């Protein structure tokens, strides 16, 4: 299992595993070398993110705005902007019984969630290929989500049955279709709001895989870091549907 919601990873609250290792994640940012600079202005011109600003005989680099595209560095005629690593997060590996849990975390104050996710994806590809990997993805439809689902075979979209939930689900569905991903919907806090999500999924021919009932007890258990399915039978029943689907997709028997 992997928590790729790097801006606020929380799956770890429910894993009582042993910390095996911590690996830093770096991103490459340009560092200005004044002595080599001819103040041609090229770096500022090619930066799409305003991460390099030239003021007469001074070049300011804003590492947090930098997307590590290397354009300023590569196109600098005098190599005055070599790329150097900056630590932006870390990946912790835990073991609990036969579960390996990776928690991917962006450092406080850093903005480039995508680069930490991409780095974690590389580790998954290298060290865990062929294994069943369940990813806790960031919410929404922005770049971190795209990066988190990029290499997946199937996406489960969790949505609440409210007008807000439906609005965001539609965006998520459009995104997954654009990415050509297979997906299904899980209705969370079922019983809340209205049945517009159900109607929408019917119309769009989208499978609703499970309906997790709305329950105050669930919220209380969650707030204590306890696993909900163990204590609420209706939740367990729905979670089993999800587990069975995953088994079926990964070719394991039920």
């Amino acid at each position: 299992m992997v928590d790729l919601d790097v801006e606020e990873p929380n799956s770890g609250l429910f894993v009582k595993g042993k910390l095996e290792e911590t690996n830093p994640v770096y991103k490459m940012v340009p560092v200005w070398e004044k002595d080599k600079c001819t103040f041609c202005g090229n770096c500022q011109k090619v930066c799409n993110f305003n991460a390099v600003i030239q003021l007469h005989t001074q070049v300011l680099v804003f590492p947090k705005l930098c997307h590590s595209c290397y354009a300023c560095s590569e196109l600098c005629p005098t190599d005055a902007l070599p790329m150097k690593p900056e630590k932006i997060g870390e990946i912790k590996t835990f073991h609990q019984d036969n579960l390996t849990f990776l928690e991917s975390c962006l450092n406080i104050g850093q903005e480039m969630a995508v680069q930490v996710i991409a780095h974690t994806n590389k580790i998954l590809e290298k060290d865990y290929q062929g294994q069943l990997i369940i990813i806790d993805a960031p919410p929404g439809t922005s770049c971190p989500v795209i990066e988190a689902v990029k290499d997946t075979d199937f996406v489960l979209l969790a949505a609440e049955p409210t007008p807000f939930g439906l609005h965001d689900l539609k965006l998520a569905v459009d995104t997954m279709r654009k990415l050509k991903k297979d997906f299904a919907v899980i209705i969370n806090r079922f019983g809340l709001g209205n049945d517009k999500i159900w109607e929408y999924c019917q119309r769009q021919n989208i499978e609703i895989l499970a309906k997790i009932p709305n329950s105050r007890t669930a919220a209380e258990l969650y707030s204590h870091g306890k696993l909900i399915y163990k204590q609420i039978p209706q939740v367990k029943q729905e979670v089993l549907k999800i587990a069975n689907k995953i088994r079926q997709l990964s070719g394991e028997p039920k």
Partner: protein
Amino acid sequence: MRIAFTSQGSTWNDPIDPRFGRAPYLLIYDEETDKLEVIDNTAINQVAHGAGPETARKLFQAKPKVLITGNGPGGNAARVLENANITIYIGAGSLTVEQAYKKYKNNELKNY
């Protein structure tokens, strides 16, 4: 002296834009020539990242000594402005450009 304002419009009577990076207009008042120059910054709407440094760079090219704005620039823009030796006054967010200038002249604005 040249004095810059972040503004929602292009005249003395327009309100100050309390934001720095995403202010649609930068007005530069040149006290020597008594002229109000207008820098159109509306394209900043299209900029997803780094609006602060981008606007600060534009402002730097207009060579003001003083900037009068509302909330004050964010960290990135402040770093550019500091390196550009522009003195910043804040707290003019609810005023027109003209009122803000008068307050500045009366030393009633806060130095950032």
